[in-house]
Each structure stands twice: as structure tokens, then as C-alpha cells.
């Protein structure tokens, strides 16, 4: 029973973070038609920035805010410098086919991931360092029993909930949000309505960058920080996004929690080493049973 509760709690807290990662992927996929494999590389980089600030005596919160802002900035810079020139490229012989046009941004994002990881290695040394949590990571004590739920878990879930509420309000209530949804759904009609689609694309990169930076900040206290620490989060986030539906933000959140639970239960009831295989199994199952995801729209091939 204790194991079960622990698994549930840890699954919720982890799932919330994976939901954030998946949401970041979905935002860029909807907004720009690209699965950004560099996303957690960006998050790793901004977490290092926060870590450096905190190590130099600044408060956690300054690091926190700077990480989010630099995450947004990094996302937009990458879009403007790399992805926008790619999408505006004229059709050459190589780019004549849809499949290659879809592959090129993926390759570019892998290149970005490589650059960010190498840069982080050069700047911040290869040795692992820890990252502080703003709240205690020991379980609450209720009637003398230590519960498998920590103050940090509360912090994580609050952060994620606030992010989800804010993004959904932004998309539902603001003009910019409407412009972004329109661009994601039908670029041509959006352009004809006077929406500057280049800008909305960049904005989706920025929001996604900030969201994944937050995910990075929340993930690293439980592991160490190194150039590769967040790779696994990308795999899990991708799987979560596919499970929920790559073009559905709500689906992404749902997928994040599903993955959080799966991983948590595998860790508690089996061994942590099987987590990778479990992720693969979930991904393949989901692709066989529901290729467009739980809440995704049917057109899987949207590019």
C-alpha cells in the first residue's frame, strides 16, 4: 500500500513536469510544424545559467526568473536564426519532396542540440553539479509517518498548474493567442487575415522555450546537472506528446501524466533500468492503437 501511494505521488509530481515538456513540444509542432529535438538542450542550457547565478550568491528566484526569460529568448533566437531561414528556403532539387522538407528541420534541431550540449560542456565543465530546490525534498510528516509527498512536489505541481492555466488563458482570451491558434490551424487563412505568421511562429518558440526551461528547473534538483541530464526528459516528453496527440496541448498534459505514472510504477514495482523499455513499449502501443494520439486530430501527416 505504501509503495502504491509513493508511486502515485511520485507519478503525479513527475508527470506534471513531463506534461510541461510535452506541452513545449506540442506548442512548437502546432505553431511551426517542427518537432524540436533541441528543446531539452535549451532547457539544460538555461538551467546552467540559473545554476551559475545561484552559485555566485544570487537568490534562487533570480536564477529562476532569468532561466525562464533566457529560455524564451533562446527559443526565439533559434527560430529566427535557424528555423525561419529553413522554412523560407526555395524549393531546390533536394527540398522538392515533402519528406525531405520535413526531415531538414529535425536534422537542424539535432544540430542545435549538439551545439548547446557542447557549449555547455565547454563553458560549465563536464563535471556534474547539483541544482537546488526552493522547497524541502523530505516527505511531510503526518501523525508521525513520513509521507511520500514533499514540499518540493507541491511546488512542482503548483508551478505546472499555474503555467497550464496561464497558457490556456493566453490562447483562449488574447488576440495574440488567437493569432497563434489560427496560424497553427491554417497558415494561409491566417496570413490572409493579416496575421504576421513569422512572428507567431517565433512566439511559439519563445513560449515553448520558457515552458521547457521551467521543466528543466524542476527536473534537475532530483538528479544532477550535466550537458546530457535532460536528454531522457526529451524522450519521455516526445512519447507523452505522441500518446496525447502531437497537436493537442490538453493531450500533451494528459500524456505527460500517463508517462509519469507508467515510469513511476515501473520504478517502484520493477527496476528503474526498465524505464527505457517501458517508454518504448508505451510509444509503440500508442502508435499502433491510436496513431494520432488520444486527443490529436486524425491527420497524422500534417507537415
Amino acid at each position, binding site marked *: 500500500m505504501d509503495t502504491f501511494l509513493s508511486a502515485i505521488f511520485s507519478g503525479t509530481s513527475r508527470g506534471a513536469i513531463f506534461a510541461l515538456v510535452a506541452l513545449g513540444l506540442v506548442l512548437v509542432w502546432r505553431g511551426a510544424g517542427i518537432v524540436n529535438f533541441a528543446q531539452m538542450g535549451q532547457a539544460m542550457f538555461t538551467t546552467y545559467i540559473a545554476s551559475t547565478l545561484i552559485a555566485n550568491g544570487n537568490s534562487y528566484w533570480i536564477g529562476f526568473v532569468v532561466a525562464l526569460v533566457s529560455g524564451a529568448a533562446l527559443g526565439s533566437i533559434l527560430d529566427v536564426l535557424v528555423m525561419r531561414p529553413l522554412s523560407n528556403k526555395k524549393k531546390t532539387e533536394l527540398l522538392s519532396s515533402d519528406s525531405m522538407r520535413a526531415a531538414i528541420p529535425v536534422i537542424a534541431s539535432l544540430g542545435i542540440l549538439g551545439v548547446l550540449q557542447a557549449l555547455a560542456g565547454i563553458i560549465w565543465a563536464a563535471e556534474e553539479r547539483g541544482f537546488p530546490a526552493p522547497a524541502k525534498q523530505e516527505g511531510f510528516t503526518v501523525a508521525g509517518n513520513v509521507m511520500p509527498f514533499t514540499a518540493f512536489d507541491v511546488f512542482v505541481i503548483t508551478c505546472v498548474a499555474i503555467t497550464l492555466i496561464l497558457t490556456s488563458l493566453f490562447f483562449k482570451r488574447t*488576440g495574440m493567442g*488567437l*493569432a497563434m*491558434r*489560427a496560424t497553427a*490551424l*491554417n497558415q*494561409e*487563412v*491566417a*496570413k*490572409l*487575415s*493579416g*496575421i*504576421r*505568421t513569422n512572428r507567431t511562429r517565433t512566439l511559439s518558440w519563445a513560449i515553448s522555450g520558457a515552458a521547457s526551461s521551467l521543466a528543466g528547473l524542476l527536473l534537475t534538483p532530483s538528479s544532477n546537472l550535466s550537458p546530457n541530464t535532460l536528454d531522457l526528459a526529451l524522450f519521455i516528453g516526445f512519447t507523452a506528446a505522441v500518446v496525447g496527440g502531437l497537436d493537442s496541448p490538453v493531450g500533451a498534459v494528459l500524456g505527460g501524466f500517463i508517462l509519469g505514472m507508467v515510469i513511476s510504477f515501473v520504478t517502484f514495482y520493477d527496476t528503474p533500468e526498465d524505464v527505457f523499455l517501458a517508454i518504448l513499449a508505451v510509444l509503440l502501443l500508442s502508435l499502433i492503437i491510436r496513431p494520432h494520439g488520444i486527443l490529436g486530430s486524425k491527420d497524422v501527416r500534417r507537415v
Partner: protein
Amino acid sequence: MLKVENLVTKFGSVIALDGVSLSAQASKITTVIGANGAGKSTLLRTISGLEHPAQGIITWQGESIIAKRPEDIVRMGIAHVPEGHAVISELSVEENIAMGSLFRRRKFKSDVQVALDEAYQLFPRLLERRKQLAGTLSGGERQMLAISRALVSRPQLLLLDEPSLGLAPLVVEQIIDSVNILCRTTGLTVLLVEQNANTALGVADHGVLLSLGKVVADRPAAELKADAALRAAYLGY
């Protein structure tokens, strides 16, 4: 006034527009008719910046709009309603209309609401269905929605691509009538592309007949309507 001169648009090796010249007079309805594949839609898409011409000149009120992006061309007062009731089905009616006025929110804040109200006034059925998703509308309502979306950007030139496509004659008549009234009362310039030549020539001031990417006739609408030989040769009736 819109002036198109010697416009050539290609898709790979296929030449869709082969040296088209025409003009749309201010506050008049100019219609472009022709059979399927004549290049009518390509013409509108090239004017609104969705396709890039290989050569030619397009000027709008004396200024060249070639190589401008669609979103900038809208800002210059040219609104394009593309073929096939182009609305975003996943958004509500309200959102679809509001989309067209997003770029005016900052500069013309007070006018945005007026424009939205006018659109609902023109097509009251949209007001009833404000909260519905555009995907649940009938074909005619979608066309009205697409036109409304274009109108709230306060265009001086409306590019209308086959509004009659797939609609019942009564609905077509209602939509064409609304556009006609709009042109006569507000001085809107309209460039109407139609396969349904009779309807189009019935409301238009001027007619241009397009065939295989070339202009074969450019005359007052009434004259074009009366030319049975030309109609038989190019439109098949």
C-alpha cells in the same frame, strides 16, 4: 485602382498565368470568368501575395505590391477570400471574424467593434451562430463567414474567389447580392472570380474572360454577356 500588367505565374514547368493584363476600377465590380484551369484562382493568389509571379507588374493605388507578403498586402487594403469557403473549422464563428481584425486592434481600436457589428449586420445568421465552431456551419454560412472575415479588415479591394462553389442557387444569389450592395453603398472595389459566368456578369460592371492563362476578352459586362459566340467558344454554353 488595381492594375495588373503582363503577369506570369508558374508552378514548376506549368505556366498558370501567361502574360495577364487587366485592371479593376475603383468602386466597381470586375469579374474574371473562365473555365476550370484558366488560371482565375492563381490570378487572385498572385495578387494577394500567396504565389510569387515569375514576371509582371501589379500596382495598387499606384504602388507596386509585387514581392510583398500576404500579411502586408492585407494591411494595404486588399482582402482575399480564397476558394472553398476558407474558414478555420476548429475556431468559433466569432473567432474567425475577429481574426481578420486582429492587426487593426492597436491603431483603430474604436473601429474594430464597429466593423464586427457591421459584419453581423450584413449576415445576421452569423450573429445567431456566434459561439458555434465554424466547422458546424453550412456551406453558405461558411462563405458568409469567410467574406465577413475579409470585410472586418476594412478593405478597399475585395478579391472574391468562386463564392458560388458548391452552394444552392438561392444562397449564391443572397451572397452575390450582399456583395453588390456593399460595393454600391460603401464604394468597395471588387474583383470577383467566377465559373458561373451568368451570375457574375449579372452584377459586374466589367468582365474579363480568361482561358489557359491568357486574357481573351476584356469588355463591359453587359457586352460580354451578350456575346453568344464567345460564350459558346470558351464557356461551352
